[in-house]
């Protein structure tokens, strides 16, 4: 019911519609349709007798909230409770989005606070620069994170990403934001050890990703079981916001931003796609192999992870991506030293992750491929073997992760497009970074906060 109400709001209607709702059972394969049959007359009522609750168009701008309590700490506790009761929080403590805090965050952009970012579906809430600053304030963010958040949200709202669908789906999708350019180090964004998890030396990714989640939920209506049917919701506390380890790129390897969007090396940019899973791949051999043998075996092992019967591949097959493979600088340099270019690795993984037609049929993938929206994908249903994406280039290979040889990390996509956005810095950028250094300690190659 929440899905439909959100969808209507996203289309510009009030959150209201004539609809007939049932428990999940009749919607399952081979179901008993008696419950539908018993209420079939109600469908006609929706076309004749139903009355809408709103008969006026116009903006609905929510007022600020006032929270009164005996002292600041009690007021903050009360605010957190009220936010949870309004279904706005994520269960973790929130900072108070006061005028003072939001004004501070807004120092991170030269854009006016009412500058439109876009409507976040399915609810269709309107996100402005100020809305983003409120979310970043709630999420423990700082002003120097705001440029990345703005670019990331503009990427997420790129129509090609079909965010209305990934928001509402039962698949546990989450946006992945890969940051390139010098801004990453300046704002303490992680590209190394533990880059997808909490790291007090690199706190930016958690705050930016948490702000994204709060926006998708509070503004976009992706409330579990109501506006998003994500059954498991993995990776959703902070999504995945990290930097490519550009200093670790082997000679001749381009950045993700250059490969995917043609942005020059050194430009500040985000790459945005939607993932639906995250898997650690132990790729290292036991250490007694010949180096070439270990390289090939490890790539075979990675390819087996990619070669899964995932219907989500069909969404990105024609124009999007099957996902991103994270590879540490140690592994990238090992492989490069053995003659493996980025293109050669992608070609190998693409070939070895292709699925024989018999297996495509056996797993029911053929029906999913034939139901895909893109004609090129539908036509691919008879390919033998069936590649997980139209071309090897669509696979994202990102040099990132701790400086260690043992693992890769695979974030499988549900990605009809890979969006790319340049990051705009405000005129006071250097001053902001100086303030951050003052607040958190100098951020060099190894942060010590």
């Amino acid at each position: 019911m929440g899905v439909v109400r959100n969808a209507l709001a996203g289309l510009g209607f009030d959150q209201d519609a004539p609809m007939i709702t049932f428990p999940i059972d009749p919607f399952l394969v081979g179901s008993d349709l008696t419950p539908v049959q018993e209420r079939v007359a109600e469908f006609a009522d929706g076309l004749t007798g139903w009355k809408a609750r709103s008969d006026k168009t116009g903006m609905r701008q929510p007022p600020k909230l006032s929270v009164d309590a005996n002292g600041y700490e009690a007021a903050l506790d009360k605010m957190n409770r009220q936010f949870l009761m309004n279904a706005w929080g994520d269960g973790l403590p929130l900072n108070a989005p006061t005028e003072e805090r939001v004004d501070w965050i807004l120092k991170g952009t030269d854009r006016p606070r009412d500058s439109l970012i876009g409507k976040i579906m399915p609810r269709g809430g309107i996100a402005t620069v100020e809305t983003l600053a409120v979310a970043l304030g709630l999420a423990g963010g700082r002003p120097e994170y705001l440029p990345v958040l703005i670019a990331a949200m503009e990427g997420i709202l790129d129509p090609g990403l079909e965010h209305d669908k990934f928001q509402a789906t039962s698949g546990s999708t989450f946006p992945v934001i890969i940051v390139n350019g010098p801004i990453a180090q300046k704002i303490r964004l992680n590209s190394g050890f533990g880059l997808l998890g909490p790291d007090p030396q690199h706190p930016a990714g958690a705050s930016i990703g948490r702000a994204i989640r709060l926006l998708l939920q509070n503004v976009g209506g992706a409330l579990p079981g109501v506006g998003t049917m994500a059954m498991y919701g993995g990776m959703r506390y902070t999504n995945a916001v990290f930097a490519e380890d550009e200093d670790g790129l082997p000679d001749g390897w381009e950045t993700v931003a250059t490969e995917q969007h043609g942005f020059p090396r050194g430009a500040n940019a985000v790459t945005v796609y939607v993932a639906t899973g995250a898997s650690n791949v132990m790729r290292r051999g036991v250490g007694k192999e010949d180096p070439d043998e270990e390289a090939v075996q490890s790539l075979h092992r990675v390819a087996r992870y990619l070669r899964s019967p995932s219907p989500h591949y069909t969404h990105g097959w024609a124009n999007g991506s099957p996902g991103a493979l994270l590879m540490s600088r140690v592994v990238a340099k090992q492989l490069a030293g053995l003659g493996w270019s980025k293109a050669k690795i992608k070609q190998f993984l693409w070939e070895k992750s292709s699925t024989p037609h018999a297996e495509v049929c056996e797993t029911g993938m053929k029906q999913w491929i034939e139901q895909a929206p893109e004609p090129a994908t539908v036509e691919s249903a008879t390919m033998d073997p069936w590649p997980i994406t139209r071309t090897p280039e669509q696979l994202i290979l990102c040099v990132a992760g701790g400086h260690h040889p043992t693992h890769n990390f695979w974030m499988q996509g549900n990605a009809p497009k890979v969006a790319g956005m340049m990051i705009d810095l405000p005129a006071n950028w250097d001053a902001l970074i100086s303030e951050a250094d003052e607040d958190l300690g100098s951020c060099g190659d190894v942060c010590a906060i």
Partner: protein
Amino acid sequence: MQSLEVFDPSGATEITQLHAPRLDTLEGKTVALLSDDMWQAHRILPLIRAHLEETYAGITVLSETEFPMGNSAMDRDETADMLAARGVDAVIVGNAS
């Protein structure tokens, strides 16, 4: 007493469209079915069609198979244009889960 004034984090919304007026009756009207081709819509929509045809005199029910099906295809302007061209008075859309 401490007072905290904070922003509502849900942002503004805008109602730009009102729901169409309801029909006085379905007799003699043309009703189209639209399908996302998911969640047993291929079984449930025919049930609704049969009920409407049995209950309302002179009703024309256009099957979902006469229009593009699927989440993306049903959502396109061309689909809306097809509905208009067929002169439909009302549409039933299914299924969400």
